[in-house]
């Protein structure tokens, strides 16, 4: 396996980008990238891609490099006879441990009005916010994924409607089905929940959730265990109902959990937050929830993902 690569890139307008990408892909079967070079911040609520695009591919720096480069330049020359093309730019790239290199550029993620996800290797740069310490190098529940972020926002919104800790948060308990890294339970406790229960079928997840809780200074109020809806309903844990229940899993699993009795975990007038749902799966989930007496209160969308807030 090669240790060096040659990056070939061209900056072209949008109409030419795909044709150039097609030429590059012939010589770089691992794939091609097309990246925006300019964003108009006023183009839409979140900004809009404007201006030319940068098209790039990577050739392994091996004995075939010069031959490939020559053929690629020839193919680009012919394409340039149809519409003028800029000269390709070349840059040598050293092999890097890309799976770790991204950490150097990682920045904490502020979520909602009060939370910020901060990795273990970094000080909290937003002291006005409540830090959730989670290492984003882990495979799940790291706070970098839209499903987790949407869920955290929804939990925060509900938590902020409950009276402050000094008044009467005695009713604020929390159940997290499929707790993974424990990030949602940790957030609920930091937002004022008196008690949280996190369950997961994966023993390793439960262990990691415990480690994350300790890293976040959670010493009381959190119960973690192996199980799911059935085990909670069987009374294996100290909580069997709560005003706020969350399941950040995948849509087919969520639908199955309704049949397992997930709705019975929510107290009357309580809230059920469901995340991990692809946009096209929304109607399947709302249909399943409707059968058990839940109505849709709010829907959050990020990319392809949807988070539903339901009341019973």
């Amino acid at each position, binding site marked *: 396996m090669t240790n060096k690569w040659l*990056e070939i890139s061209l900056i072209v307008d*949008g109409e030419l980008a795909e044709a150039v990408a097609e030429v590059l892909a012939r010589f770089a079967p691992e*794939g091609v990238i097309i990246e925006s070079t300019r964003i108009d911040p006023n183009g839409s609520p979140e900004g809009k891609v404007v201006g030319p695009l940068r098209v790039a591919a990577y050739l392994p720096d091996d004995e075939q490099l010069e031959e490939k480069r020559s053929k690629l330049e020839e193919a680009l020359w*012919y394409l340039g006879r149809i519409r003028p093309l800029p000269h390709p730019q070349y840059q040598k790239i050293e092999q890097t441990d890309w799976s770790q290199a991204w950490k150097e550029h990682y920045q904490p993620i502020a979520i909602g009005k009060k939370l910020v996800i901060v990795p273990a290797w970094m000080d909290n740069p937003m002291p006005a916010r409540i830090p959730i310490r989670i290492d984003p190098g882990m495979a799940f529940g790291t706070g970098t994924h839209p499903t987790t972020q949407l869920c955290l926002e929804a939990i925060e919104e509900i938590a902020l409607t409950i009276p402050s800790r000094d008044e009467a948060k005695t009713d604020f308990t929390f159940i997290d089905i499929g707790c993974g890294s424990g990030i949602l339970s940790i957030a609920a406790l930091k937002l004022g929940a008196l008690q949280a229960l996190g369950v997961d079928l994966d023993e390793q997840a439960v262990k990691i959730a415990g480690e994350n809780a300790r890293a976040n200074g959670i010493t009381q109020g959190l119960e973690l265990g192996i199980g799911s809806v059935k085990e909670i309903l069987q009374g294996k844990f100290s909580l069997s109902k709560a005003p706020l229940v969350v399941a950040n899993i995948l849509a087919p699993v969520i639908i199955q959990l309704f049949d397992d009795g997930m709705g019975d975990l929510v107290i009357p007038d309580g809230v059920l937050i469901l995340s991990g749902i692809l946009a096209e799966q929304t109607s399947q989930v709302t249909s399943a929830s409707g059968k058990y007496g839940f109505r849709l209160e709010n829907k959050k969308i990020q990319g392809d993902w949807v988070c539903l807030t339901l009341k019973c």
Partner: protein
Amino acid sequence: MAKKLKTVVRLQIQAGKANPAPPIGPALAGHGINLMAFCKEYNARTANRAGEVVPAEISIYTDGSFTFVLKTPPASILLKKAAGVEKGSALSPREKVGKVTRQQIKEIAELKMKDLNAIDLEGAMRQIEGTARNMGLQIVD
């Protein structure tokens, strides 16, 4: 308040084969994106489309978060399939490697309409026709 876009990166890669090597590593690591998390999710969502190029469009925000959506295959891949050729011409426009019909162009334009920056179907068809010509494909009625 809506998040603000920092950049948008489109990866044209093989379904189910994302890994941290180039092009994904250098394209995303500099933006602080959790590469393994991205690769794992991309591979899971494209696992049933082995052998296809399934583009992922990644929106990276100024707060460091990101999201991605899967896109329709590149027009060039669809055109090659329609023309029954393995690759485009290296000598286009001098060399023609195959033919596509206007009906095929229309079908591809309809499929890719939502991903193209076109006002209407005619505009989308013109973009697809341009890609076809660039690849050395002749357009016939």
